[in-house]
């Protein structure tokens, strides 16, 4: 990616400058923000990763999933349970969470990928709600509705000999920043790789890609599992941030919220969904401070986005530029 960025940067210096400033600001954030706002920044970054992972499915793979929270939640529960019950180190708890999310996606993918379009939406929603039902009903393992409170944050000092524990907000912020940066880097690599282009080809014309000799099913399947794994990473981070995991993590409302983030920002761009995620997290925090009717307003946001910005903010910007370019 650095080579890619350098190439872009040499052709367009403002991009390089913006990226550099962005990185510096992100690094300085713990010294600029109050603990509350730093927490907000952590949430934004985690949901940005979550939304980008869904964008790999929707924007690049053309697979409209309404059950993406299942992988976020499964990884979250796995990590939470391992950290809570077995006091497992973060270096084992997160990989275990990712593995379980990927395995579940592999199983669900076998079923969901037999279908397209509305059926795919419906089946991913149904599969996601089944996972929610299990988390809700299996009280002895998951604590049911009460969830699992007091998940301990990782103590890197214990396992790595580093001078800090992640229970403090600042080191935890850097931990999340680093993890999300790695996730973003990998996602950019994936969508700009031959695999990513083949995936876009499948989105545009499945029959043509089949005729070209691509194993379309395998591409979709790999994309499905990869997207779930990145959603899982977001879920693991969120559990450590929240120190709590409950069935809400994998409810369809969360799947729909992340879908909203993707569409609001603009699918098929990665940066769009990240912006969409930051915006929704911000609005949720600001609005719920003033009113109890956040759900109502969220519903209205869905309706407004669907009617007036189905191509997202990125789409609106593009449209604006096109209009300005016309004499």
């Amino acid at each position, binding site marked *: 990616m650095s080579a890619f960025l350098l190439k872009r940067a040499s052709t367009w210096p403002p991009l390089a400058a913006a990226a550099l400033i962005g990185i510096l600001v992100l690094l300085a954030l713990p010294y600029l923000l109050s603990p509350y706002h730093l927490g907000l920044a952590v949430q934004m970054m985690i949901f940005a990763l979550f939304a980008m992972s869904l964008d790999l499915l*929707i924007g690049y793979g053309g697979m409209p999933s309404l059950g993406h929270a299942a992988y976020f939640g499964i990884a979250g529960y796995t990590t939470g349970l391992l950290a809570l019950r077995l006091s497992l180190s973060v270096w084992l708890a997160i990989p275990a969470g990712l593995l379980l999310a990927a395995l579940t996606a592999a199983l669900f993918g076998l079923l969901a990928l037999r279908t397209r379009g509305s059926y795919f939406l*419906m089946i991913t929603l149904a599969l996601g*709600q089944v996972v929610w039902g299990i988390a809700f009903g299996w009280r002895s393992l998951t604590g049911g509705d009460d969830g699992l409170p007091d998940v301990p944050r990782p103590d890197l000092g214990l396992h790595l000999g580093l001078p800090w524990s992640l229970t403090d907000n600042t080191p935890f912020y850097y931990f999340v920043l680093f993890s999300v940066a790695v996730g973003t880097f990998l996602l950019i690599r994936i969508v700009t790789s031959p695999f990513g282009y083949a995936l876009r080809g499948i989105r545009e014309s499945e029959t043509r890609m089949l005729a070209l000799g691509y194993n379309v099913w395998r591409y979709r399947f790999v994309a499905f599992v990869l997207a779930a794994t990145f959603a899982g990473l977001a879920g693991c981070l969120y559990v450590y941030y929240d120190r709590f995991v409950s069935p809400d993590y994998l409810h369809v409302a969360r799947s729909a919220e992340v879908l909203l983030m993707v*569409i609001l920002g603009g699918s098929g761009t990665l940066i769009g969904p990240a912006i969409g995620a930051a915006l929704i997290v911000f609005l949720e925090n600001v609005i719920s401070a003033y009113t109890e009717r956040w*759900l*109502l307003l969220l*519903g209205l946001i*869905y309706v407004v986005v669907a009617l007036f910005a189905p191509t997202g903010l990125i789409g609106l910007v593009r449209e604006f530029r096109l209009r300005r370019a016309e004499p």
Partner: protein
Amino acid sequence: MTFWLVQTLNGISFGMLLFLLAAGLSLIYGLMKVLNLAHGSFYLLGGYIGLAVIHVTGSFVLAALAGSLTIAVIGSLVERFFLRRLYLQELPQALLTFGFLFIFSDLATVIWGRNPETIPKPSMFRESLQLGAFYYPSYRLFIIAFGLVVAGFLWWLQEGTRVGAMLRASVDDEETARALGINVSVLFTLVFALGAFLAALGGVMGGPIVGVYPGADFEVLLLGFVVVIVGGLGSLKGALVGGLVVGLLDNFGKVFFPELALFTIFAPMALILAVRPAGLFGRE
């Protein structure tokens, strides 16, 4: 033996409620390719309006009529003024209907609060009937009979009337249907209203046995989806058979594996998907 009979009847009566819900989902999808995520709201709001009406009038029939007619009007407004603008745009449609699901769900808690409520049974069906060696609530038997009547009516509507013929023509080839002078636009609104009507009717009918409570909208939406996944989208027969299958499985699942109840409907769904991705009666 009695246990099996009672549980089977419980499953079938619940399945009939699911049929009312899924028939609308399926008809709407069949005609306009819209996956209506707000369908669960129609069910829940129908139940709440029914509840309010029965508290005032004491009449179950009036409650059912008021609930389902109001929701039919609301449904047609949603179709006319919102969904229509997003014709054949899958993701925006999903966002829009999900938005309405949130809006309706929040409005319901504002108006009716968070406590679970039950609609009183119609006075005719308060008693239990003696069926051979055991007693069984007559209301559940009434639901089964009522569901069959609705199924028969919908079948007649689709196969035996002029509107049904127009509907089938529009499902098969919308453009040609328009060219032949069929007013597909009005048909869209009518079918959406009918779907909303049936869902709300399900909400009122289900009020006495499953109750009316916040969150029911999401729950029945999931079950409705599983029904149409099993039965096939766009097929009335699929909605009926799927409804019964899911109703029975859900009931026996809750009896035998209370902690993993949803898993029992997951397994057959997975099986159907593996064998027939378009559902039992769906078109490929």
